[in-house]
C-alpha cells in the first residue's frame, strides 16, 4: 500500500540545482510551496508534503489563542472550478503550534500569523524562539474573519505599525500576504515595504458567496467566504505583475496555480516562488512534483539553468 510506503520513506531528495530559488533572504530547494490554510496542522503532514515535492510549507494562520473556526459547511465547490471557503482560521493557537514544531529538523516551515494589533504578532513571534523556521508570513488578507486579515490589510497605517513591530522582534525574514479588499491593495504593499518587509505574497482568496437555488440560502455557515482556485488565477497574476512592475521587492505568487504552466506564468510575471492550495483538492499532493517536473522540462526546452533567469521576463516584452 502506498500508505505504508509514505511512512517508511526517509526524508531524502536529490536537490536539483535548477529549481533552487531565492525569495530575498529565503532560499528554497524548489519554487512551489504549500499555501497557508491548507493541510497545515501537523508536523507529520508537513514532512509528507516536503517529501512530496513542496519547497516549503506555510502553516495555517495562527492566532494568540486557539480558534475553532466556523461551523460547517466551511467549503463549497464552484461549478466550473475553484472553491469558496470560510473555515474561519481554525488553528490550535501559536503556543500549542510552536510546541508541536519544536522537533522540526528538515522541513522549511513558514509560520503564518494572524492578529489585530502589533502586540498580537510580537507575542506570537516570541513563542517560536526554539523552533527551526524559515520565515514568518503575516496574514493581512483573510477575507472572512472580522478584525483580522483584510480588515487589517485595508488599513495601511496599521500595517506599518504591525510590520515595524514584527521586524524589530525577529531576525527571521518576514513576508506580508496581501489580498483584494476595499482599499487599493498596492497601498498595503507600499506600507509593508516602507516598514521593512522582506517579501510579499500575492494574493489571498477573494471574498465571495455561494447560494443554493433549491433551499434558497447561502451555503456556507458564515455566508461569505474566500474564492480560491482557477477562477482567481488571472487576477492574482495581474497583481503579481503590478507589484513587480512598481516595486523592487521579492514576490511569492499565489492564486489558482494548479499546473506547471500556471507556475511559470507567475514566475514570468515577477514572482520568485509560488504557493498553491486549491489544486490539492483536485490533484492531491502529487501536484507539487508534477509542477516541479513541468518547470524543469520547460527550463530545459527554453535553455534556462536557474529559476532566477526567468523571473519577470514577461515585463520586458
Amino acid at each position: 500500500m502506498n500508505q505504508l510506503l509514505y511512512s517508511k520513506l526517509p526524508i531524502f531528495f536529490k536537490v536539483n540545482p535548477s529549481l533552487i530559488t531565492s525569495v530575498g533572504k529565503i532560499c528554497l530547494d524548489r519554487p512551489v510551496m504549500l499555501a497557508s490554510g491548507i493541510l497545515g496542522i501537523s508536523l507529520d503532514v508537513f514532512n509528507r508534503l516536503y517529501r512530496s515535492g513542496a519547497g516549503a510549507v506555510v502553516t495555517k494562520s495562527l492566532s494568540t489563542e486557539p480558534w475553532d473556526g466556523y461551523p460547517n459547511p466551511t467549503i463549497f465547490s464552484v461549478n466550473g472550478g475553484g472553491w469558496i471557503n470560510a473555515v474561519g482560521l481554525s488553528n490550535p493557537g501559536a503556543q500549542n503550534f510552536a510546541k508541536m514544531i519544536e522537533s522540526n529538523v528538515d522541513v522549511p516551515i513558514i509560520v503564518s500569523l494572524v492578529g489585530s494589533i502589533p502586540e498580537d504578532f510580537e507575542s506570537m513571534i516570541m513563542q517560536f524562539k526554539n523552533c527551526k523556521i524559515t520565515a514568518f508570513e503575516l496574514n493581512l488578507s483573510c477575507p472572512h474573519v472580522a478584525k483580522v486579515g483584510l480588515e487589517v490589510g485595508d488599513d495601511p497605517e496599521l500595517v506599518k505599525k504591525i510590520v515595524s513591530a514584527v521586524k524589530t522582534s525577529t531576525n527571521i525574514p518576514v513576508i506580508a500576504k496581501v489580498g483584494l479588499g476595499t482599499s487599493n491593495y498596492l497601498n498595503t504593499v507600499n506600507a509593508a515595504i516602507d516598514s521593512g518587509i522582506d517579501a510579499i505574497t500575492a494574493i489571498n482568496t477573494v471574498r465571495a458567496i455561494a447560494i443554493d437555488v433549491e433551499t434558497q440560502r447561502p451555503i456556507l455557515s458564515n455566508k461569505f467566504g474566500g474564492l480560491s482556485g482557477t477562477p482567481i488565477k488571472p487576477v492574482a497574476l495581474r497583481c503579481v505583475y503590478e507589484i513587480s512592475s512598481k516595486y523592487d521587492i521579492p514576490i511569492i505568487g499565489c492564486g489558482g496555480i494548479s499546473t506547471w504552466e500556471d507556475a511559470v506564468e507567475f514566475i514570468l510575471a515577477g514572482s520568485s516562488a509560488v504557493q498553491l492550495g486549491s489544486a490539492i483538492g483536485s490533484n492531491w499532493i502529487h501536484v507539487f512534483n508534477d509542477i516541479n517536473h513541468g518547470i524543469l522540462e520547460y527550463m530545459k526546452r527554453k535553455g534556462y539553468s536557474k529559476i532566477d533567469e526567468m523571473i519577470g521576463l514577461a515585463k520586458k516584452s
Partner: protein
Amino acid sequence: MQRNHNHPKICIVEKVIDETPTVRTLIFSDDVMHNVLPGQFAMVWIPGLNELPMSVMVSKESGKAAFTVRKHGLASTGLYNVQVGQQIGVRGPYGNSFDLKQGKLLLVGGGTGLVPMMRLLTFVKPTDDVTLVIGAKSKNEVFFEELANDLLKNNVHRVIITTDDGSYGEKGFVTNTIEKLVNENRFDGIYTCGPEIMMYKTVQLAHSKGLFVQASLERTMKCGVGICGSCCIGEDLVCKDGTVFDGDHLMSNHEFGSFHRNKAGILENY
C-alpha cells in the same frame, strides 16, 4: 452537465426509521449514493444548521440510499431531527473502501460504525463464511441485527451481539468476544468500524496474529476533500488516505487509538 460530486446535491428525505431511542435512519433517492463502496462517505448538509461526514447506509430499493445517525452533537442531532419531506444536501462520495477478501470473514461494528459493515455485507460472495459482531451498551441500543441476518441469509454466517450490561446477547465488551474468535479461528479478513478504542483493540488482536485487518476511521472533518487538514491522524488524512486503513499501517501510526484533534486542531486523548 456532468454532476460535480463536490457540489451538494439536494435530496428529499423520504422515510425516517427509528432504530433505537437515539438512532435514526433517513432514506432518500440518489443513484450515486446508492452505489458507493463500503467505507466511503458523504458530506451531508443540513441547510441552515451544519454539515457532517456520514457513512452511506444501504437501501434495498434501487436508486435509494440512507444515513443512519445517532444524536450526539449539534450537527448529528440536527440530522437526526430532519423530518420526511425536508431537504438535505449530499456531496461525495469521498474516501477509499474496504479491500474485501474471500473465505472466512470477521466484521466488527459498534454503534453507527455498523453502517459500513452493512454495506460490506452486500459485497460478500455466497461462498464466504461471515461472522458479524455487534457491540452495544445495552439491549435498547442494538440495531441492524435483523438486517444483517437477512443480508447474510445465503451465507454460512453468525451474528453475535454483545452488550456491556448483559441485557442482550453475550455480556461484556465486544473486544473480549473478538479475542476469543481470533484465537479459535483463522480469518482471511477482519473489518471494523466503530468507537476508536474498539477498533484499536480489534486491530491490535488481529495484527498480533498476523491476520489481515482493516479499520474505517473517524476524525473531525470540514472539507472532506483533502484541503483543510482537520482530519489528519499522524501524516494521514482520513478523508483522502482513508477512511479505511490497513492494520499494519495503523499500528505504526502513533495517534491511532490514542489521540484525535478537536476543531482547533489540538490533540486530545481518547
